[in-house]
């Protein structure tokens, strides 16, 4: 397998793996936040703020993979 086909096979798989990882993370974050809101509805604003921050951190990992794909895709 030469460099180009290895890259062509690897890039989509890499994106998918990154998406699986941050999907699991986002699921956990949403789960925790929803339970917390259900327990304490009056703290909704604070919980949502923290949830958005952490969700952005988890989601950023997929974005890094995405940017890497766009940087590498001209080389295929």
């Amino acid at each position, binding site marked *: 397998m030469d460099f180009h086909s290895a890259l062509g096979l690897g890039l989509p798989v890499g994106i998918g793996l990154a998406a699986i990882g941050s999907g699991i993370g986002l699921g956990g974050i949403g789960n925790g936040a929803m339970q917390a809101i259900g327990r304490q509805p009056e703290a909704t*604003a604070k919980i949502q*703020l923290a949830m*958005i*921050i*952490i969700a*952005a*951190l988890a*989601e*950023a990992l997929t*974005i*890094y993979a*995405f*940017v890497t794909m*766009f940087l590498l895709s*001209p080389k295929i």
Partner: protein
Amino acid sequence: MGLEFLVRVRNTTLWLAGVGALLVASYLSPRLGLALAAGAAWSLVNLSLIERLITALTSRERVTFACRNRAALAIAGLVVLFASGAALLALLPAPWLMAGFGVPLVVMVSKAVSALLLMTGAWARLTKSPWRAALVAIAIGGLAWLAVSALPGHPSAALHAAPPAHASAATHEEQKAPGFPTVVTLLEATMPHAGWVAWVVKDEVLLFSMLIALLLCVAAYFASRNAKMIPGPLQNVVETLVEKLYDFIVGILGPRYGPRYVPFLGTLFIYILAMNLFGLIPFMHSPTASLNVTVALALTVFVYVQYTGLRELGVPGYFHHLLGSPRDVTSWLLTPLMLPIHILGELAKPISLSCRLFGNVFGEDMLLVAFATLGVMCLPVKQLPFGLPLQFPLFLGLAIFSSVLQALVFTVLSTVYILLMLPHEEHGHEGEAHPAH
């Protein structure tokens, strides 16, 4: 015209020489930029020493010992300064040093001339009506534009001629990412050989971001001009937005530090939101879908956060913070470990901020392009000038949602970075437990 005039000259010179040195360093060569900055710094120190000498010699108590002492110190400083000037002349290219040396003098002369000009009656007549003033400003700008483009060694022409930049631009254009047509690509297609169109294509992102900034300025002007107790529609919208942003940011930073940072963070939010949404207008382009813009925004936040830390904590407090705020023996022992971690964390912040915003906006644009292309291709009859609007309901909504969310995330993370830099006695170590990046 007194000492206050000199202070203003000094501030203007600092800005002018700093920006000029950065430009020269990035476009011509770092050595020349250094020479320019060194020349300007030398000249400023020279001016301030002379100023000290003169105030010491002409003050009323010039016979006292302290005063003579000050004068002697200034003279000694001047001697050292001239020696270092000779060393600089030997080390760095002389013409650029002289250019840097001349910057404060030029600033002084132009400030004096403009002060004289502002006092004349013709100027007052000119600026009495805003329309006449705007006309004159446009005329001056147009004349300057013509003069610059008529110059033979015009800087943008030199940039085009530079071989490496040109080669990389050419290869970049060949494999340009697919996208919706914008005003700029239409211009390029209709007039491929005009010189100014090439310039517009090169600085497309810059052009769009400046246009957005201009639009926001105009909106702010019309919303705040003759504000009323019972607001009109525009004032109402803007006031609601500003109040919500104020409450939001003060809610995070606390009532003591919050209000000071509202203008910066609120502007960041509104500007990024406008830039994200601008790409959804047909024939327009999101500037944030380019890494250059997002890196610039993230670097602004980075510098501002470090400056905030230095200002609010002081220099020792800042380094104490970088060492992980050690309090007892164990944490002091851990500082060699904590220092690189904290420095890396600080440096990772702008990278993650810029890549996140760029990736989201760019990905959103690519998604819309992919589905619009699919909509065109899935029609049985090709060569139609339209396609099925596959991207319309779902993905456009997703794009709007994600634009707002990303602007919010950028602002919230910047706020949290500032919060981490503020002295947090009342937060204890909660602030540390917050996500660092």
